[in-house]
């Protein structure tokens, strides 16, 4: 079976699992609850802080955290491409005529539009904010063994969402490997045909086959599980450690700092 990496711009679940199981960094020993708490804190922080400087600082901290955990830094650049493209593709239409010094103007039927320093800063700000949570999220999932993550998710999600999540994770690797094998087979037979309809039809055949094969495989797994007593109560029994005093202290200090920054307007105020 080939690996499950279908693109260098999308994190490979096999690699994520491998790193999560093997990682022995200090961060891997932290409670998943603490890590999730920091994630929530970061989401709130990048939402309420309008400062490019603070965002840059947060980005530096999460990159340092990522690197200190011994995670693959070179691959991170590739994985950040998609989130950056997503943000740019949407925000590029909205950064025109933001107040600031004009960098250049473009003629437009409804009047000229200008790219200003403010518009450019806004673009950098939104990209920076995006990368903060993306890089932290990758650090989180690559330093938390799947047993712990599953147990954490099964406690956080109500039934049957937890059952679907746990089974989906179980089927994910097989599905990805099947898809990768089918795409390799297509390339080995001369690659993709030309023409939009032909290409669409070919990919639809691949995806249709993928659905049918995956379902048949998952049906076999399900029957095997039922024969062993599964009654839609898949339980992730791994104990999930609660945050220690250090974790609680970090979260408390972070929350107080964020609250104080927002209350005083020191987080950036009106300026970007």
């Amino acid at each position, binding site marked *: 079976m080939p690996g499950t990496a279908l693109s260098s711009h999308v994190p490979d679940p096999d690699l994520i699992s491998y790193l999560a199981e093997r990682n022995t960094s200090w961060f891997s020993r932290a409670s998943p609850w603490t890590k999730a708490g920091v994630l929530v804190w970061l989401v709130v922080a990048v*939402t309420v802080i309008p400062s490019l400087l603070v965002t840059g600082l947060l980005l530096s901290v999460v990159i340092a955290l990522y690197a200190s955990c011994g995670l693959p830094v070179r691959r991170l650049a590739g994985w950040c491409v998609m989130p950056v493209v997503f943000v740019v593709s949407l925000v590029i239409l909205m950064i025109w005529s933001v107040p600031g010094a004009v960098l250049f103007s473009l003629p437009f039927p409804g009047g000229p539009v200008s790219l200003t320093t403010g518009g450019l800063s806004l673009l950098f700000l*939104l990209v920076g904010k995006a990368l903060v949570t993306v890089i932290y999220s990758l650090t989180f999932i690559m330093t938390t063994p799947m047993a712990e993550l599953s147990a954490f998710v099964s406690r956080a999600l109500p039934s049957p969402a937890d059952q*679907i999540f746990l089974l989906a994770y179980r089927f994910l690797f097989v599905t990805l490997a099947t898809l990768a094998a089918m795409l390799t087979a297509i390339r080995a037979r001369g690659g993709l045909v030309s023409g939009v309809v032909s290409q669409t039809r070919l990919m639809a055949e691949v995806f249709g086959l993928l659905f049918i094969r995956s379902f048949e495989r998952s049906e076999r797994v399900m029957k095997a599980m039922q024969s062993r007593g599964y009654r839609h109560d898949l339980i992730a029994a791994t104990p999930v450690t609660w945050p220690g005093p250090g974790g609680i202290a970090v979260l408390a200090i972070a929350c107080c700092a964020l609250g104080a920054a927002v209350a005083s307007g020191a987080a950036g105020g009106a300026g970007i």
Partner: protein
Amino acid sequence: MAHIHLQDGALPLSALLLWWATAVILLLVCIWLVRRRRTTDPAVITIAAFCTAAAFAVFQVSLPVFGGVHINLTPLIGILTGPFIGGIVVLIVNLLSAAIGHGGYGMIGANLILNIVEVTVSYLVFRVLARLTSSVFTRAAVATVVGLVAGNLVMIGIIVVSGVQGVTLGLAGMIQGLSLIAAVNLGVAVIEALVTGFIVDRIARARPDLVRGAS
């Protein structure tokens, strides 16, 4: 599927809370109805789980059409699993996607709302069209286009109501910009409609038991 590709930090906190609260209510309704209808038997859970895994896998493939487009097959999820299980499936696909950087965690609420709309509309159109045509391909393709158009309208509504932090464009300017994105999305929707039509047609021929109302 339509997907608000903004990451964390783009929408104001009040909007995130509003969309999250709405999404949680919708999700709780889905879970309540799933439990009430006793559709939590292992077969349904299996279909939902494999739909989740396959949708997530397919999302990672760039179709070599128009320079490369991504599809997520939300309407297919709706057609195969129905709106209630489909709502749960899109939650998990969104969680997995956010974990690897495709859409922010804060945006899951907003994305969940528009995905549930897509799942529900596609499912209903697919079922209703059974009275008009026996072609599974046509029903699935039309259901996909209608579902994705509905999803796009919800996407525009969510962004216009929320506003993007730091953006000073007026309502008209924002709608203009978003309409351009929606137009591109609709081009992708046609591709997704063809793909979904072919997939459902193929599944209906190979495993009719998987497609409710296939015959």
